[in-house]
């Protein structure tokens, strides 16, 4: 590319980049002013939109946010655990079981997740799977609610 042309291309790129930055900054300020009547605060929380969506009952939007969190933080369980909880609320029990099941492959996972999986599989009528998760929960020191113990046939002295 001749040097004059390259120089022109560079200048155009700079102009576009600077204009894009300026426009993005002003639009970001205008957006926050319009929505919250304030300047953007110094803290911006990635999960703020999901929490707001849950508060107003828009669980599908919250699920989208958590799904994206799970995709970006692709070795961490947090997004999948939150996604599973929202899917349970949405009565998508199969989806919740998939999300929590996948979360188990992203250690460290909280022990109570096994209890939640046991409860979920009980609701799905998959008693054998539920029993397997319940036993892991017991091994990891999570007490089972008496009703669940009874349903799964795990007495108080059941071997983990």
């Amino acid at each position, binding site marked *: 590319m001749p040097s004059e042309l390259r120089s022109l291309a560079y200048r155009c790129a*700079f102009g576009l*980049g600077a204009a894009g930055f300026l426009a*993005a*900054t002003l*639009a*970001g300020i205008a*957006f926050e002013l319009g929505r919250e009547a304030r300047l953007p605060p*110094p803290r911006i929380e*990635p999960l703020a939109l999901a929490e707001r969506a849950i508060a107003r009952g828009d669980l599908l939007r919250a699920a989208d946010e958590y799904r994206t969190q799970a*995709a970006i933080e692709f070795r961490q369980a947090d997004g999948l655990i939150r996604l599973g909880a929202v899917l349970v609320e949405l009565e998508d029990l199969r989806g919740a079981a998939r999300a929590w099941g996948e979360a188990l492959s992203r250690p460290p996972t909280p022990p109570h997740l096994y209890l939640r999986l046991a409860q979920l599989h009980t609701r799905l009528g998959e008693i054998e799977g539920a029993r397997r998760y319940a036993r892991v929960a017991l091994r990891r020191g999570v007490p089972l609610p008496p009703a669940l113990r009874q349903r799964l046939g795990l007495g108080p002295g059941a071997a983990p």
Partner: protein
Amino acid sequence: MSAGVATAGPGAPRFGLGRTFVGPAFDLLLIGGGLTLPLVAWLVSSGVSAVGFLGASFPILALLLNQAHFAASTVRLYTKPQTFRDLPFVTMVLPLLTLATLSLFVLLADQIGRHLWALYLSWSPFHYAAQAFGLASMYCARSGCRLSEGERRFLRWTCLMPFFKALLAGTPAGYGLGWLLPGSAIASRPLALLAFSWAERGFSVLSFAMPLALFAWIALRSGQRGGGAPRKAMPWISLALVASNGIWWVLLPYLEAFLWATLLHAIQYLAIVSVFHVSERMSAPANRHGRLYHVATLYALCVGLGYALFQCWPRVYVMAGLGMVESVLLVVAAINVHHFIVDAFIWRIRRDSGLRSVIAAS
């Protein structure tokens, strides 16, 4: 700026802190990472977590330090003399390229967003290692400790040891090696697990053994003439710079290390940028202001730009109907990557006579 404890002149002590830019306390504590030792000693002994300690003050600290420091490389890029001429691609094309790439990643966050996120988190410890190397060699040069090519190479490898350790330590969280391999793939193979844990220990030990070895090696050979004045020993501040980077990544758990290293690195960066910026501005023929004015305007620019980048940018994508998660995380990642690239160009001391003259100046 005052000269420091040891100077490059004849008759100066063989060992010393090094020739400082501002003063021994400022250079050692803020630039040299001297704050690290008491802080880490307290953190390790008390078991306090970064989140627990910083708590509600973190957003303000992040704005005033972290975000200002990311912005500082951009401010430096556009205020450093002659950068449009010397670095046309970085000054003129890179911003648009960053904007376009970021937008693509935000649009396809579920498919490819994780790669930008993992790139940022895997690259960060390398960036800190590179900064430790740059600053340590700068203090050596400034203090009359001329490093041979082999010693420079050794110093570079020394600085990389904490980075290698971090590459392994980040595996469970999905960064470093974890970007390519799940932690379970290693944990399920006894031999791989053994090799992994030995490698991690090895890099931890080397993070401290190598700087000490280099320091001792240079001390043994100091006083020799290489065609000029006798060579000085390696300044303590260079050793502190390299060791503090090791302390962050070796002694603290990975995510804690990430938070503290980012914060302390930001302080270090803002301090050294101010030193160079003020020195250039003060020596400009048309200068009519004092040091304080230049420091204050530089810092105000950095905080303002940091606020625009980190607080305003993500909201634009949300305004366009995209999710908050991808908007925030990927904007943060893109700004970091841009900062790493810009830094790699603006701190090329050996190729930049302007930088060399600031380093040599007293």
